């Protein structure tokens, strides 16, 4: 029996020791989140379900590579990121393989202000409605930051990107969303 307040990391540690039921608890916690994450990239529900199943299989197969001293969610999202990106590459290779200048040069990023956190709920609403208008490379950090509540470092680790590039993509993604919202005020105000 697993206590509901057992941390993901403890559960992952138990799975590493062979406790299969602990993996079931992790799946209960993360299956809806991974499905939601997948819906930000793909539209075919069956594809998303199949990929989510693959993600959990990969997570189980590779669980012993997880370091229980670190957070479990970025580790799982890294597997999910790879699965969804590989799937998108198969569908449209040219778009995903395009060279990315953002990761080449360092960028100065503005620190996050406290009042920005208050905008998170609004941002989620805007993202939900206007996300499809964004390129995948700007969409993913926004989703990870506002929906999955990952910090810059965790996003950098999931997407294997420099920290400054994560900052730039978040800023550009938000700027692009502002334009969309500016053009269509109904998104923000209903």
């Amino acid at each position, binding site marked *: 029996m697993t206590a509901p307040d057992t941390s993901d990391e403890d559960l992952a540690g138990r799975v590493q020791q062979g406790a*299969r039921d602990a993996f079931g608890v992790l799946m209960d916690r993360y299956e809806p989140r991974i499905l939601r994450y997948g819906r930000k990239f793909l539209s075919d529900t069956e594809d998303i*379900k199949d990929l989510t199943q693959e993600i959990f299989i990969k997570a*189980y197969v*590779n669980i012993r590579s997880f370091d229980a001293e670190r957070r479990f969610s970025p580790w799982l999202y890294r597997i999910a990121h790879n699965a969804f990106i590989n799937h998108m590459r198969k569908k449209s290779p040219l778009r995903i393989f395009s060279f990315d200048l953002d990761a080449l040069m*360092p960028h100065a990023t503005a620190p996050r202000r406290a009042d920005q956190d208050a905008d998170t709920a609004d941002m989620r609403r805007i993202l939900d409605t206007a996300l499809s208008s964004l390129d995948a490379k700007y969409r993913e950090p926004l989703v990870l930051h506002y929906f999955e509540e990952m910090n810059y470092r965790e996003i950098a680790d999931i997407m*294997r*990107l420099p*920290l400054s590039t994560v900052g730039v993509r978040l800023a550009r993604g938000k700027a692009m969303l502002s334009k969309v919202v500016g053009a269509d005020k109904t998104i923000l105000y209903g």
Partner: protein
Amino acid sequence: MDKHGPIKENVLADIARGKIAMRPRWHFALRTALGVMGATLLVGGVLYLISFAVFILHQTGVWFVPVFGSRGWYEFFARLPWLLIACSLLFVAILEILVRHFAFGWRRTVLPSLIGLTIALVAGGLLVAQTPLHDAMFRSARERKLPVAGQMYRAFGSGRLERVHRGVIVEDADDGFIMRDRRDEILHVILSPETNFPHGADFGDDDTIVVFGSREDHTIRAIGITAARNMHDIPAPRRYMRRTHPFLPFAPR
């Protein structure tokens, strides 16, 4: 496996049936060890190639010719071992790709990381070049005691250049001196009032020098002459400025 059934039930059922199994810890430890070993080999390879390129430039005398101004620089770039440099750059690129698989690699932007890595490896290569490693290997190669790399040392180290000549002063002559080069050829070096001595002209028998100038048969008309020393020798830079060589027919410029 029912791919379209409930995800959790499918996965747990496959685990229970043994269709999905955890990879053992040693699998990941081995992968990390192989990555580290690969990176170490690449670093070693780049350090070896860079230090070898520096050694070759010393052996041929090309390393010293930039002191003769624009013509010297032109000769320097024309005679750089571009094949070794290309191989080194390829290794650095592979190393950068490998490093980007680790958190300390991907958290940094590509360009500064690549520049930093290149600077560190060039500095490391210069340090390795200070050791007698290549001298010893070159000697073994000449004595045919170096089975694998011997051919490489002989091929890179004993080619003849048209305008750069490194050798040891054997004796003086009326219009210059006689020099034995690294291929054991005896060469007559002719000096003129135009001959440039950027670091002075305090040369004597058995001194190793680099002569910059065109060669015709066994005669070189010297445009410039400078002292050459091995990378691992302790430098004695001011010695050359103290006096004029006894057989030098002209005052140094």
